Every structure is written in structure tokens, then in C-alpha cells.
């Protein structure tokens, strides 16, 4: 079982790879819309990739209003 820190780190790594942003420029409390320069549609795309990576289902409502990596990771952690 992953710890929340591991999950957060994996979220950051996946986001940096997928959106081609340097990994060291991302921090858990960053706003991912701003840091990755993405819109709400691209955020949904990120969600699909996170689902595949963690092997979980993540309904759209789980990320409603979420905009930072840490909260996103905690929503994933609760479904692992």
C-alpha cells in the first residue's frame, strides 16, 4: 500500500511527464491548472491517466473544485 507521500509524488511525476513540465518545478500545493497551464478539459484527461496509472476509478465529482496536487492525491489515496 502506497503512503500519501508516495501517491503525491507519483501524481507529480505523471503530470510532469504528460504535460512536459520539469518535475522539479512542481510542488504538492501547486495549483495544477496554473502550473501545468491546462484547462478543465485537459484536467479531465489527466484524471483518466491517473486512473490507469493507479488502477482505480475516479468519478468526475471527486475532483470537482480540486485544483492542487495534494488534494488530488488524497482523493486518489482514499480509493486505493
Amino acid at each position, binding site marked *: 500500500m502506497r503512503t500519501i507521500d508516495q501517491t503525491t509524488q507519483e501524481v507529480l511525476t505523471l503530470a510532469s511527464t504528460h504535460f512536459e513540465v520539469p518535475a522539479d518545478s512542481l510542488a504538492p500545493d501547486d495549483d495544477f491548472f496554473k502550473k501545468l497551464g491546462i484547462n478543465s478539459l485537459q484536467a479531465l484527461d489527466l*484524471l483518466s491517466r491517473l486512473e490507469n496509472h493507479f488502477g482505480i476509478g475516479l468519478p468526475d*465529482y471527486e475532483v470537482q473544485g480540486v485544483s492542487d496536487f495534494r488534494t488530488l492525491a488524497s482523493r486518489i489515496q482514499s480509493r486505493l
Partner: protein
Amino acid sequence: MLDLAKYQSIGAALKDALGQFSGEVCLIEADREREKERLTYREFQDRADPLAQALQEAGFNANDRAAIIMTNQSKWLISAYAIFHCGGVLVPLDYKLTPEEQWQLLKHSGASVLVTEYPIWRQLTASPSRASATNLKTILVTEAPPRADLSGTRRWEEFSSTGEPTFIPRQRKDVATIVYSSGTGGRPKGCMMTHENYLEQCVALTSIYAFAPGERYLSILPTNHAIDFMVGFFGPFICGAAVVHLRTLRPEYVREAFPKYKITYVSLVPLVLKNLQKGLQARFDALPSGKQKLFNALVAVNKALTKSQPRLALSRRLLKQVHQAFGGELRAIIVGGAFTEPQTLQFFYDLGIPVANGYGLTQAGTAITVNDLKPFRADTVGKPLPGMDVRILNPAADGVGEVSVRSKTVMSGYLNESELTAETIVNGWLMTGDLGRFDSTGHLQLFGRKKNMIVTEEGKNIYPEDVEAAFESLPVKEFCIFAANYIWPQRTMVGEQLLLVLHLEQGQTLTDELRRDISARNNRLLNYKRVHGLVLFTADFPRTASLKIKRNILAGRLAQQDRAAAILPL
């Protein structure tokens, strides 16, 4: 379709539609690959009547207000039908707002009933603002897990009663819905829409884009939005067509839905349309050079043959693969909620996929103008719909002035805001605050806004005053928020941004600490409400005797600075 001239209310028309089209499919609901539900109009009625009966037994009477906060799904429409059947006033709220904003609007609307989904309800209960909405008497929660704590609420699925509910008739001038065009955080702007507004708008829209039994509309825009309420509920229902709901809006499932359900119409906001364009273009660019040349030649032929009007059958044959990806039966993409760039519209039209763009606002009953495609004019927002009296106020030498509208579709006013209503509807004319002019063929072209607000590509109206609460008690002398184009008019409807104007204390500088404070506050706002830059102002803000900022005067003073130099990155 039903002859809406005979009807007094949305409820009466929907009731007859359920009877007339009883055997037709009206709703399909899918969750990712799985089809969850498929209902005929008769089955829809079998679900809605027991709910309406239970609402009546719970004391829900004519003119009482009932709010819905849900994602797009069958229970949204079933609940709305039941509310109208009881003669109630529907308050459709945006499920994307924060719980605090939702509570604020629930309180403002005076709703006595709330219908919501369990995940939304969970967030609502966690908000301290809950205590403020004491007007709610009945709360219905859908899809709650078996052991969920639902104290003070009822399960939607169990809230039903036997017997035939009494149909409560309403008149055309009665209020049917209260639709919040914006206004959270500041002054809520609840547009009171009458039954007549909807009946007349539906007649006008279906005169150009009609539905028929067997056709399917893909409902993606939130149903609380005026466009989806009209073309994703009322319009298809009174024509006996079907509405398809997806429980996830991930792009991959949306793409699959087109061929799977043979979609006829879909409404999109410009952001989604542009995303679709980007995806298609990438696929075209990846074609081997020979195929690419052939494809481009076919597009050129299609373009030449559809110059004066769309020829769907021909385009579907010429560009078969593109049309098959959309299911082969798509008749038009309706785009709304915000301004769409002409090149995006042209891209789809050249592929033989008409995009029905237009221009409208909630206060005008959804659409004011629509492109009738005869011929297609990507550089305009189309011609006024039947029944719309549109004029340009105080035009400048180039013909550009404020667009104003008089029509039976214009709202009756803002809830509890008579002063604001009087400023917005003057002698029966709705002042849109948008700048435009008609060309020689009667097509409307838009050139920016006169009002201090922005509309995002996702179709969200943002009023700067509503965002200011997030910066309350910021350690500066004074601040306010402006739409950049309000200060420096750009004659464009795209790329709009909000700016935070700061007047620092004497001797104060814009330190990193202050920037961090601003960023932290900004990040707590929903992403589409955030400010994009800072502007420093070194004098006191002009104010009224009651200390309100004289925004137009301040904007004029700010405009004396050079735009590019004045806007500092956040």
C-alpha cells in the same frame, strides 16, 4: 412537434408531450462504456408522477421554488418535470459552484425544496454556510450509498407516492424558473424567466433547428445552463426526440458517444469545440502525404459545393470517415455560452459539419441571433431569431453601438433587484452591454463589451465585483477588479482577462510577501474566476458619497496608462 402557441406553460406542454410520444425513447444515460438506462416517454412519466405526487403531499404548492443541483442525468429532468407539474418555480443551480456559493444562492432564491446528488450533498453539508439556508423544507438526495448519513433529507429514489398528482396550471406571464446568470460573492443576479419566455424561444429555435422523434441530442453543457435546458430538455421533449446523458465528460467517452448513439445534435462551449478541432487537425496532419493531399482535395470540393448552404448528404459521402467518427447522423453542432472564433467555425463547416453559432444571454431567454447557414457566415453571430427585435443603440460612425433587444423571450427581471432590473430593461428593451453592428445582409457582428465583465471560453460569466470578496482585507490601501477590456477596449470578444487594481499605502511596495498573499487568495477561487494580472494605481479611487467605487471613472483614469506596460504578471 407540439404547437406551442396553444400552451400557457412549460408544464402543460411537457405533460402533453409525454402523452403524445409515449412509445418513443426520451432518455438514454450512459456511464463510461455502460448504458445505465433507457427510458421511453411513458416510462419517464411513470417515474415523474410518483415524485410529483410526493412533492404535493409534502406541501409543495404552486409558485413554491425548488432548486436542482445535479450533474446532467435523467433524474435532473424527471425532477424538473415534477416541479413544473406541481406549478412550482424551478431554480437550476450550477453544480460546479463552491458549496458556499450554492448555499448563498439557495438562500437568495427562497427555495423550499432542494434536489441534489449525494457527492454534492456531502460537500454542501461540510460547509459552514449550511446554517444560513433555513428556507429549505424538503431535501432529496439521489444515489446515496445504503449506509450514508442522510439526516434531515430523503432519498430521491424512495420519495414517491401512489395516485395521480394534480396538474397545477400556470399562465404564460408566471415565473417558470429563476436562473442565476452570475452573482455569487456579490449581488446574486437571479433572472426570473417566465413560461412565455421559454415557449416563444422554443418556437423560434425549432423554426431553424427542429428535432424529430428518433433523433438524439447529446447533453454535455450543464442542464442548469439556459442553452442545455432549452436544447437538451424542453426542445427535444416537445418534439419527441431523445436526450443522451453521459455521467463522465472525459473526452474519450464523449468521442465514443457520437457513433454509439448516432447523435443528431450536440451543444458545446467554444473551449470544447476548439479542443475537438485540435484533435481532428492532429489526425489530419498525421495522414501520409498522399492521403493528406487527397483529403485536402475532398475538403476543397466540399467547401465549393456547400458555399451557399450545407448539403449534409453530399458532405457525408465526400468526407465519409470524418462523418463516421461523429456517428454519420450529426446535423449540427450548436455552440454557445461564449464567443467562438471564426476560424474554428469555418474549420468544421469546411468538413461539412455545420456549427450553429449564435449570440445570446440568459436575460434574453437564451439565443438572440443564430446563424441560419444560408449562407454560412463564420464572421458573424447570425441573424435575429424570429420574434427578436434587435437594435444598435447610439452607434458610432462605424455603426458599432450597444446591442439591445425587445422580445417575448426577455426575462421579467432580476429577483429582489428592482433597481438593477430598471437599469437592464429600459422601456421594454434589454440592454445587453455588448457592442455590435449589423452588416448589409442583416448579420450581427460583435465587437467587445460595454459592461465590466468577462465571459470565459467555458461559457462562464464573471463579474469582477463578484470576485472581489476573495481579496477582502488584503493589506493595501484599496483595491478593485476590472475586466481588462473594460479599461482598454480591444474590439474583441476573445482572450478576456480579469485584473486586480491595487492602490498601495504610502511608502508600501509590491513585495514578494504581498504577491504570495494575492496568489494564495487567487488560487482559492475556481480556476475560471482568477485574476490574471496586477495594475498599480497611485491615487485614491474615485468614490460616491456612499463610498462605492465609481468604476467607470476609475477605468477612464487607468486607461491613460499603456496597457502592456501597466499589466504586471501575478
